[in-house]
């Protein structure tokens, strides 16, 4: 059995999500291939070849792969999977905005079910996945000829370096032609990326205003942390949408998650409860966040946060 991992990349480098997906793939099949579909993506393909456990990298290069359009990347995957989808036993992509966008197109064309956001591989045909915002875990078994899977990256460790796979250039599938990339607004930040950060400082509705989020900055600076937010804070317009941690935002699992002024709605907990250590700062001692926090401080965040910065030295 051979699994195919769809690499998420920006042409120059691989995204960390690819490494977690390779780990999941290695649990499904004896051999792992990685597809890098991009434009001038030689560097990303070379990086994929260095992942431990990868036996072959398939590199498809064309201008119409530059921006990862779902229509074009899915056609490339289908050309490798073969007309009956028998080329690979498993096709996996990270359950990020990138992978979620592409993979269901592949599953539909192959006429197989997709298994979304797996957190564990129990057997090559049996997987665990959270449902109802993580309030239940479903154990699902697939009898399809090829298993099409998105991988929740926090469920699997990142694959290590140390591989030396061959990079094979494959023919690029054609341009679908009915969709076009117009532009991108990427938030510029010196902080680590939310899903890759070791420490996250997150604010909620309790912050009260966009301005108040500034008091979290010295804390995030001190800890070299990414900054996140609850849906309530995003909906209130305090911070940008891509800061949102939760069921419908980003799923994170850092070693330390500091929740400030976050009450702990189910939807938020679904996005961060796999963090190694959770710290909660809230003035309400009954806030549900304390039921998942390892360490809680009941108090006014506007006093606690500056003290915390001072104490960290």
């Amino acid at each position, binding site marked *: 059995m051979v699994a195919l991992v769809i690499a998420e990349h920006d042409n120059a480098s691989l995204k960390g999500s690819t490494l977690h997906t390779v780990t999941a793939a290695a649990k499904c099949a004896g051999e792992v291939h990685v597809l890098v579909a991009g434009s001038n993506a030689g560097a990303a393909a070379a990086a994929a070849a260095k992942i431990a456990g990868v036996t072959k990298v398939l590199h498809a290069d064309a201008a119409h792969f530059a*921006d990862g359009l*779902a229509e074009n990347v899915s056609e490339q995957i289908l050309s490798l999977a073969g007309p009956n989808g028998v080329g690979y036993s498993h096709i996996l992509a990270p359950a990020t*905005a*990138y992978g*979620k*966008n592409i993979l*269901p*197109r592949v*599953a*539909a*064309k192959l006429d*197989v079910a*997709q298994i*979304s956001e797996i957190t564990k591989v129990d057997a090559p045909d*049996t997987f665990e996945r959270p*449902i*109802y*915002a*993580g*309030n*239940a875990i*479903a*154990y*699902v*078994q*697939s*009898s*399809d000829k090829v298993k099409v899977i998105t991988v929740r990256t926090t469920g699997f460790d990142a694959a290590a370096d140390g591989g030396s796979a061959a990079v094979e250039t494959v023919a690029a599938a054609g341009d*679908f032609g*009915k*969709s*076009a*990339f*117009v*532009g*991108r*607004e*990427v938030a510029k930040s010196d902080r680590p990326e939310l*899903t890759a950060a070791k*420490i996250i400082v997150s604010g909620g509705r309790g912050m009260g205003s966009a301005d108040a989020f500034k008091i979290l900055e010295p804390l995030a600076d001190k800890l070299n942390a990414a900054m996140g937010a609850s849906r309530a804070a*995003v*909906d209130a317009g305090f911070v940008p*949408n*891509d800061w949102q941690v939760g069921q*419908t935002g*980003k799923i994170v699992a850092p070693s*330390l998650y500091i929740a400030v002024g976050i009450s702990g709605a189910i939807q938020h907990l679904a996005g961060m409860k796999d963090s*190694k*250590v*959770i710290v909660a700062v809230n003035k309400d001692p009954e806030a549900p966040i*304390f*039921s*998942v926090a*390892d*360490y*809680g*401080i009941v108090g006014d965040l506007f006093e*606690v946060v500056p003290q*915390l910065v001072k104490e*960290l030295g």
Partner: protein
Amino acid sequence: MKVLVPVKRVVDFNVKVRVKSDGTGVDIANVKMSMNPFDEIALEEATRLKEAGKVTEVVAVSAGVTQCQETLRTGMAIGADRGILIETGVELEPLAVAKLLKAVADKEQPQLIILGKQAIDDDSNQVGQMLAALLNWPQATFASKVELGDGKVTVTREVDGGLETLALQLPAIVTTDLRLNEPRYVTLPNIMKAKKKPLETVKPEDLGVDVTPRLKTLKVAEPAKRSAGIKVPDVATLVSKLRTEAKVI
């Protein structure tokens, strides 16, 4: 121009579901059911396009048990002109739903289909993309802004790290993210009006679609519980615990 909006009946987002003790699923007997929140956003967007004069008809479609009629009535109270129920007792997987919707789209010939990005029960996030593939249409998922132009739609999408804008030729698929719009409150007069709007019922067999599930759910279990920790009296204690006990800083 016609817009199709598929809507799903799900456990209300405020209900905390419980796993059944025999592990066969979650207990949804006697819990409040509502329209999937992302689908409400999809219907609101379609209705606004109609109010702006860019769309002539909004058709809501649902697939599932008889009670999905209520979800369709809610949809018609928001602004859909009519409803189609694909009635079945079979638990539908996303691929089956996409096939049913394709059959409806083949018949209705909409120029745009707006769906919620995911349902909050199975959290699959698949149907829109699958439907786009089956119809061979372009797609823009996780939309935060939709601008309908002549023969095309320009969509701003929420992606990791920011926003991305795509231009799609019509007909096309759009799936909604949370902040595309804020759905209106449904008013009593509109609920009354919705009762008189046409609601057609079809069966999967009528559409020639096999909805047999492909996946077997072996069991459904409670997630591993995270035990509550301790409350610390002051910041100094917290920092010392993080350093010496948790060793994370």
